[in-house]
């Protein structure tokens, strides 16, 4: 899958802005190119503008300024029912007075397809979501997971250009959510439709997407593949929002091609990857993932080091979380696999923690918000 869709973009948001109250922008200059068949997730905290973007694409909210193009054609003035976009809602929105079959047949009946074709299609999609035996039931007689599968089938049955999913798994419990993630992925690979998926659950975003656009305050902070987001976050917000990160404050002392030297507040000098910093003398934050931080005896003298006091230890199951505090009170977390090598510490032991320079990022602030 193309990382950047480039000129052949199937779906394009260009300079899209949205305000509800004519005072503040909910979406500030949204740009995104999506290739055909791509699985894009809009990820962000609630109120960050991701659902608004989805609603503008679906046509339920109008665009304040900017363009949304599908296949190079602007859709901003096209009515929602003419956009040929499938949508899966958080609360399923299955029509309660119709059976599953009637629900699935609905978009086809509107399109005036012949009866036998409708029947064949409904059969096909019911078996696709493994609910063929449930066709004559009403949505109220199904479990949450089954309802969501029907909603999915209904959004796909009329072969829409794009399928939008607005937190579709939000109402399900954890185990079911994981099953459904797998299910959606399977259908996506099998049928090859384009997905715009909205969620605030980062695990969901990381496991399913080709690319993730991380939203905050109406701005896309970073749009990249999951591993890039996780390993090379573009700014502090992304580093914080996706996964967990240890943050050490310091000042930039030297700038290289892709590395910077940072003088930490406790006086130590560390080397780190250059992200969105960097000028000598400016403050910065070095971010390290808890599982990249380890104890010196593992790494020898290869990496950066910082001294910290042991605070407490949490037993999680497959791994153990060690909590440390540096001299200036910054909290550091180390994730260590729960194997025989997991060390024991007693309170207030002073330990040197180490990490490799390529596993850390020198980060600035989040992308500044532009105003109306």
């Amino acid at each position, binding site marked *: 899958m193309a990382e950047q869709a480039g000129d052949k973009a199937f779906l394009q948001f260009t300079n899209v802005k949205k305000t509800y109250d004519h005072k503040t922008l909910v979406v500030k200059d949204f740009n995104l190119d999506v290739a055909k068949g791509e699985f894009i997730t809009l990820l962000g905290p609630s109120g960050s503008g991701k659902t608004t973007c989805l609603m503008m694409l*679906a*046509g*339920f909210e109008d665009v304040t300024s900017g363009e949304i193009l599908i296949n190079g054609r602007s859709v901003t003035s096209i*009515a*929602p*029912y*003419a*956009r*040929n*976009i*499938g*949508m899966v*809602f*958080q*609360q399923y*929105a*299955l*029509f*309660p*007075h119709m059976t599953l079959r009637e629900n699935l047949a*609905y*978009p086809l009946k*509107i*399109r005036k397809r012949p009866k036998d074709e409708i029947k064949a299609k409904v059969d096909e999609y019911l078996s696709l979501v493994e609910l063929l035996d449930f066709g004559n039931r009403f949505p109220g007689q199904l479990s949450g997971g089954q309802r969501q599968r029907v909603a999915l089938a*209904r*959004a796909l049955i*009329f072969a829409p250009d794009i399928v*939008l999913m607005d937190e579709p798994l939000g109402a399900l419990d954890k185990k079911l959510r994981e099953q459904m993630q797998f299910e959606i992925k399977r259908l996506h690979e099998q049928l090859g439709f384009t997905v715009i998926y909205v969620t605030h659950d980062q695990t969901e975003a990381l496991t399913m997407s080709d690319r993730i656009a991380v939203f905050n305050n109406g701005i896309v902070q970073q749009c990249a593949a999951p591993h890039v987001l996780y390993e090379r976050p573009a700014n502090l917000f992304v580093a914080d929002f996706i996964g967990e990160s240890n943050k050490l404050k310091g000042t930039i002392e030297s700038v290289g091609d892709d590395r910077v030297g940072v003088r930490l507040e406790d006086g130590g000098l560390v080397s780190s990857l250059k992200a969105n910093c960097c000028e000598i003398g400016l403050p910065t934050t070095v971010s390290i993932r808890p599982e990249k931080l380890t104890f010196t005896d593992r790494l020898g003298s290869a990496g950066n080091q910082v001294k910290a006091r042991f605070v407490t230890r949490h037993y999680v199951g497959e791994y153990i979380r060690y909590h440390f505090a540096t001299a200036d009170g910054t909290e550091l977390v180390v994730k260590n696999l729960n194997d025989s090598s997991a060390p024991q510490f007693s309170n207030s032991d002073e330990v040197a923690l180490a990490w490799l320079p390529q596993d850390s990022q020198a980060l600035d602030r989040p992308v500044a918000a532009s105003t109306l």
Partner: protein
Amino acid sequence: MSALTTTEAGQAASARSKKRLTAFLFVVPLLAFILLTFVAPIGSMLWRSVHHPAVAELIPLTLVELQRWDGHAIPDETTLNVFALELHGLAKQRLSGKLSEELNRAYTGMSSVVKSSARRIGRLKIEQLESQGAETLLQAHRNWSKAEVWYAIKRAGQIYTYDYYLTALDLELHPEQGIQVREDTQIYLQLYGKTLNMALVITLFCALLGYPLAYYLSGLPENRANLLLVLVLLPFWTSLLVRTTAWIALLQTNGVINSFLLSSGLIGQPIEMLYTSFATIIAMTHILLPFMILPLYSVMRGIDPSYLRAAMSLGAKPIPAFARIYFPMTLPGLSAGALLVFIISVGYYITPALVGGTDGQMISNIIAFHMQRSNNWELAAALGSLLLGLILVLYWLYDRFVGASNIKLG
């Protein structure tokens, strides 16, 4: 699963019965209230419509004698003598007026006949009656020689009767031909029809006016919708009488509406609006509208806007989406509102009485008439029982075709 031991089962059972008793104690006051003010009056009404001992108490011996009567010619002399004797007794006790009223109800025109005959017979001595009773009676009025009169008296003497139901259904019992349609006065059936018709029209108007309003309210933010709902309920806070009187002021010949239309030159003659069924319908629609709006609103409020969005994303244009998706989902509220408005308007009394005139009267006004003016409580009870039966039948039909479980009041 392991079975409970006997002791455990016993404990569970006693806990359950204790719970039931507590629950029952909570509803006892309401239950007593309902029994006293609702079930008992309705029961006594149903009872009164078939139980009518008045005539049987006044002339018991005559009625016994009439048992032997073949129903064709005048009853034999013994019977007439017994009747004369009883009439004499009634005249002395000043009860002949009551008898005249009762018999008049059974056979029109008997009021004066009974009164004058009672006076005549009352003047005789009891010893004279033994021999001259029958003769005096027959001389007193020619009606006493009519078989129909005696037939009517015999029927009126029955303690348990369905005659009032026959009257309420515009039927009568003919001595030879059995039950047949009464030819002279056809009022009640027509009135039932008109009542149902008007209730239907009122329900329709309420639905037409209430549905768009409820839809609009359901789309508003909660605080504004609540404010507007208070306005919908505002009519409930003013007296029904005041609201109805306001309609009189609006609708009368030189009322607000006519004055406005006349002065604007739209009409040359005032329109007769007050004291017509039009006035009844318009005033009752106004009064009953909240009963339609409230259930509709609460059902619509519960419908997630994503249903309509889903329909549109699936390709449905707004109007088909509304008709096929939204409207069916509001049916529970619509049927609840319609049922409420219909049943309330079928039995409505005060508004048609005030603004309806003769044209806009409904069945309850006739019932009230028989209760208050003509003093025929038995007929009023029969009419009321029929109305109750009619509503039950309609409710049954509704349940059959729409399903009562679909009703949703909130």
